[in-house]
């Protein structure tokens, strides 16, 4: 049993990390009242940028490359998310439609560039990845140590730490209060002198930045190259995690960990005796089915921010 956990838990965390980053991005955006279906596309941009940067600069930066690639992916994806911000906030576009456009554009643009630069539909394999590490002290704890804190990737632990940081920012700082106010009742927030548009722009760009990180670590750790199928639904799964987590950073993290768990079961499940006979299709659809159930209210009521999806027009009742 312990052996099985030593296989499943680390791989669950490993699969969950990109979802956690992206879902936290989603929390920022949706808490400010902007629906972000474009998370998938932003992850695509992050994955593309991360892989291209890694392939191009691996010789110059050595072991530092994946980290720099992650930062560059973060910046590029957050700039890309500006398109969604401009459409959804300033041009009062339907936010879902604009998100769909972001998804199309991200995939089209990145594949266009891959074909132009590499002359084929996918990039080469990334050679320099993140190192696996044992966390000092914590990995020495008996039982939990080897399962939770050994042989993991640093970005995975970073994702979990970040979830707590985001929780602190959203619930304990003035910025977070303003963010939530803008998403619940923008007119009241505006009356109190909060710049609604500015807050929403910041939130959408943060979501782009975090989805960019999520995409780049997914590509660097899991797929190791970039093609049309690199990001296939992870963004939507992160969206699901955010809703399943009831628009709460820690909830989103928990849901992402759970989805990562389901994903890792569907992949390593074949090696586990009592799961061998469960068809993988059940594990594959589990996250999605659970999200629907969660929304339906079987697992506690999930309420979206009140002003979610509605553009704010000054002076309009």
């Amino acid at each position, binding site marked *: 049993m312990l052996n099985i956990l030593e296989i499943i838990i680390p791989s669950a965390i490993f699969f969950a990390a990109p979802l956690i980053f992206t879902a936290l991005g989603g929390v920022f955006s949706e808490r400010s009242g902007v629906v972000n279906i474009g998370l998938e596309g932003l992850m695509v941009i992050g994955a593309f940028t991360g892989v291209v940067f890694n392939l191009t600069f691996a010789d110059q930066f050595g072991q530092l490359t994946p980290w720099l690639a992650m930062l560059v992916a973060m910046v590029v994806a957050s700039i890309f998310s500006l398109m969604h911000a401009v459409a959804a906030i300033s041009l009062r576009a339907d936010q879902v439609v604009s998100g769909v456009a972001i998804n199309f554009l991200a995939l089209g643009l990145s594949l266009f560039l891959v074909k*132009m630069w590499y002359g084929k539909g996918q990039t080469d394999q990334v050679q320099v990845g993140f190192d696996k590490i044992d966390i000092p002290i914590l990995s020495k704890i008996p039982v939990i140590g080897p399962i939770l804190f050994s042989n993991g990737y640093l970005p995975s632990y970073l994702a979990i730490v970040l979830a707590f940081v985001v929780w602190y920012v959203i619930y304990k700082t003035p910025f977070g209060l303003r963010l939530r106010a803008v998403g619940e009742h923008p007119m009241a927030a505006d009356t109190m002198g909060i710049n609604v548009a500015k807050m929403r722009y910041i939130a959408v760009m943060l979501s782009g930045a975090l989805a960019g990180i999520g995409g780049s670590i997914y590509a660097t750790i899991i797929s190791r190259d970039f093609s049309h199928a690199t990001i296939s639904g992870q963004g939507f799964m992160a969206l699901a995690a955010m809703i399943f987590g009831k628009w709460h950073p820690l909830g989103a993290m928990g849901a992402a960990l759970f989805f990562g768990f389901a994903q890792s079961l569907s992949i390593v499940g074949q090696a586990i005796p009592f799961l061998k006979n469960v068809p993988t299709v059940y594990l594959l659809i589990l996250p999605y089915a659970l999200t*629907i159930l969660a929304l339906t209210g079987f697992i506690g009521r999930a309420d979206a921010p009140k002003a979610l999806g509605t553009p704010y027009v000054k002076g309009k009742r």
Partner: protein
Amino acid sequence: MSENRLTNILVPVFAVILGIIAGAIVMIVSGYDPIAGYSALLYGAFGDRYYIGETIRQVTPYILAGLAVAFAFRTGLFNIGVEGQLIVGWLAAVWVGVAFELPKVIHLPLAIIAAGAAGALWGFIPGFLKARFRVHEVIVTIMMNYIALYVSNAVIRSVLSDQGFKSEKIHPSASLRSEFLQSLTDYSTLHYGIIISLIAAVVMWFLLEKTTTGYELRAVGFNQHASHYAGMNVNRNIILAMVISGAFAGIAGAMEGLGTFENVSVKAGFTGVGFDGIAVALLGGNHAFGIILAAVLFGALKVGALEMPSAADVPTELVDIVIALIIFFVASSYLIRLVLTRFKKEGK
């Protein structure tokens, strides 16, 4: 023609023009020749009989997917689940096509009805959850897409084949393929589906504009409270709208299963047709006739794009960029409307 109506037609036209210009700019910036690129595209879409046949074949599911999205839109719902409904429709159509041996007059309609029913079922779930629990249909339909993808793959592996990657070919009695249409278009994959999709467009127009049910559906879309007050059953209409929308999407899947491919294979990812349907519906202004025009445009773009790499060395993905930008410009129509009203004021 009233000014408002004129603007409604001008917005998509401007969006298309802007999208095509933006595509040209992308080509110039990337060092390709935009004129060569677009002429290759045009030739690849309408250059000879074969290409025209392929374009019409691509337009077929686009019309139906566009109708599905638009039908939901008109009733105040956003059905992103067209992709999943299309996949289960495809699966159901092929299943019926493989499992039975019947005379064509029974078999073919049966297969199409099965596809419509499967899509309708897939639409019923989000509709029901919306009506009963007020769950937002966008998220549920996205989740249903993935469930459709994985479930249909599992069914293809374990039921329709022996752990293989595709089903058997459907019996000819369930096929939409037509020797006549193929010979007419230099042996393209054109099939009778285009007639079905055009009929579907008329059905949607008639249903929404000319029947009491359609009036109720649109009323619920405009204002649920007012409709409720007027004595309409809001919940029933929400479910009905999603069921009909899903049925259109399922039949779109039947076009692929019974016409284009004549089988169903395990998919690594989505077909994209359902998502393109969103673009088609938006550009077509959610109107049956507009959807046919938009479907022709996107079908031509998609099929024509295949000619671009060989003739002009431009990656096919350029077309995806153009389509994305067109959606983007339609969505941001506020900008175009603003510019249009400025122009009018200055003209006066």
